[in-house]
């Protein structure tokens, strides 16, 4: 394969994995905006999404169109349960306490997933076959189109939700100023609950679409969560479009680094770029310095 089509191949797979990072980063942002918590269980939502989808479509043989919404529904419930039983009961929470709580929840989810699905890696068949499509000298896996397509749909729906619906606007208001939002009659506690439900749901979607490419096991959540967190920070925490841009950037860099430099160093290359960006611009690419200093430990 000539070099340029190799590069196209790497960019294509980079955009695909980057889309997934972008969705995960959006999940981080939704919760961060309403609570200023970094939810370390976000990666576990992705893992649970993938495995639940495998449960419905592979084990119970449900068709994709039923398995998909059912999985999203299950994850939404998991998000709600998590908020009700772990975040909500804490009196006078500090940011560090909440972070440790979410880490504990992520360990708990991992333990449950291991009990339910075992330690094996599970396979989810691609949505529309595995036959590659020729594209500018490179081979395009049809699942890539599904991933990017569904990501675009998620992003468009979320933008509409935050811009044009009353609940979405209320959530945005909480992100800007929680006290002012509650003075305007917005039920902040309900918005927090909603943000966990929404975050879990889109985390689940990320898991469903990535499972046919990377496969899924009970311990895959942490690494995916870490990359998503990296994207969220790189784009500027809480910044909607920053997360998407940074997710894609991380994915493409990782893929190019693995292909052209050394596959063992792929994560190191992506992280090194992330560190350099933070050192030059401490609040992420699109972040505002004031905001980054505002929510501190």
């Amino acid at each position, binding site marked *: 394969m000539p070099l340029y089509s190799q590069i196209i191949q790497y960019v294509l797979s980079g955009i695909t994995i980057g889309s997934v990072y972008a969705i995960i980063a959006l999940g981080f942002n939704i919760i*961060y905006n309403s609570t200023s918590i*970094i939810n370390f269980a976000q990666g576990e939502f992705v893992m649970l999404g993938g495995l639940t989808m495998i449960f419905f479509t592979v084990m119970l043989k449900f068709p994709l169109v039923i398995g998909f919404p059912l999985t999203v529904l299950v994850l939404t419930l998991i998000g709600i349960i998590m908020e009700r039983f*772990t975040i909500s*009961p*804490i*009196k*006078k*929470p*500090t*940011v*560090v*306490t909440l972070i*440790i*709580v979410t*880490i*504990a*929840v*992520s*360990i*708990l*989810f*991992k*333990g*449950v997933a*291991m*009990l339910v699905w075992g330690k094996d890696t599970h396979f989810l068949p691609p949505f529309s076959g595995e036959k590659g499509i020729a594209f500018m000298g490179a081979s395009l896996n049809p699942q890539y189109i599904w991933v990017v397509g569904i990501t675009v749909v998620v992003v468009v729906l979320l933008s509409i939700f935050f811009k044009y619906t009353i609940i979405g606007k209320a959530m945005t208001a909480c992100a800007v100023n929680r006290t002012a939002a509650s003075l305007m009659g917005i039920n902040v506690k309900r918005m927090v609950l909603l943000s966990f439900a929404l975050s879990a749901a889109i985390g689940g979607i990320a898991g469903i679409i990535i499972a046919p490419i990377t496969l899924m096991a009970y311990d895959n959540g*942490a690494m995916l969560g*870490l990359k998503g*967190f*990296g994207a969220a*920070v790189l784009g500027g*925490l809480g910044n909607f479009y920053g997360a998407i841009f940074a997710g894609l950037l991380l994915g493409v860099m990782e893929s190019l680094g693995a292909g052209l430099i*050394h596959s*063992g*160093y792929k*994560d*190191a290359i992506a*992280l*090194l770029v*992330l*560190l350099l960006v*933070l*050192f030059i611009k*401490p*609040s*992420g690419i699109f972040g505002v310095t004031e905001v*980054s*200093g505002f*929510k*501190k*430990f």
Partner: protein
Amino acid sequence: MDKKNSLTLLILTVCLVVFPFIVTNTYYISTMVFVGINGIIAIGLSLLMGCAGQISIGHAAFFGLGAYTSAVLTAKLGFHPWCAFFLGILLSSCIALIIGIPSLKLKGHYLAMATLGFGEITYIVFNELTDITGGPSGIGGIPKIYLAGYAMNTDIKYYFFVWAFLLLILTLSLNLIHSRIGRALRSIHDSEVAANAMGVNTSKLKIQVFMISAVFGSVAGSLYTHYVTFVSPSSFGLFFSILLVMMVVIGGMHSVWGALIGAALLTILPEFLRALKDFEIFVYGAVLLLIMIFLPRGLIGGLEYLFNRLIKKV
């Protein structure tokens, strides 16, 4: 150091000396060695997190740097263990300085991400630099360390060796906290702007305490290496960094004693849970969750609360 701390330190020392005479099972002694090693790093991290209010989710890297410096220099190049020990400290503090200067300008979650990234990069380098580190299969055949002519070759000897280090580090840390520097650090925790306005050189102090905690990590790493006589990258990954942060927070972030209690709990608990087999991870997560929900100030916070109520009743 005030009276209360000196007294606690004395009681701890007595308990530690008596312990191996009551419990002779080498398995328990060996677990206590690991409590000591983890305790040393946790105390350093507690100075950084609890005192100065700066988070680090990459401290396994300094533990790894100390461990690998000792391993590579003694097993492969035939250096004297103590020479490697101090070179490890030197390397860790230099790297802490280089990483600390740009990182500690970051705040909150951005600092968390930067230290996490640094930890992961170090972990990947341990894995990929096969010529020096031996890659994923690690380095074995590391010699034992000698103290004044005596080889630290049994669990009991190593137990006293490690805990002597821990007590030294604990004393140093307690003195540091109750000094002028300690008060300056706490002022950073409360408000960096106010600390700056009062003439505290906050950026310099933050880097210094970061370096101190890196040195403690490196010391623990070297002690670990000469105890297990084998190192591989899997001991120095993200999971261990997160575990260290949890030790500090679960124990109680506002006190170095908390870090010690947290280290003890999180080192001993998995040993007990091993009997549960497949339920191990689940129960472990549940225990941590319950502690955090019901004791948000950590175990030491809970103990203090009980103690104060007891005093009131009496």
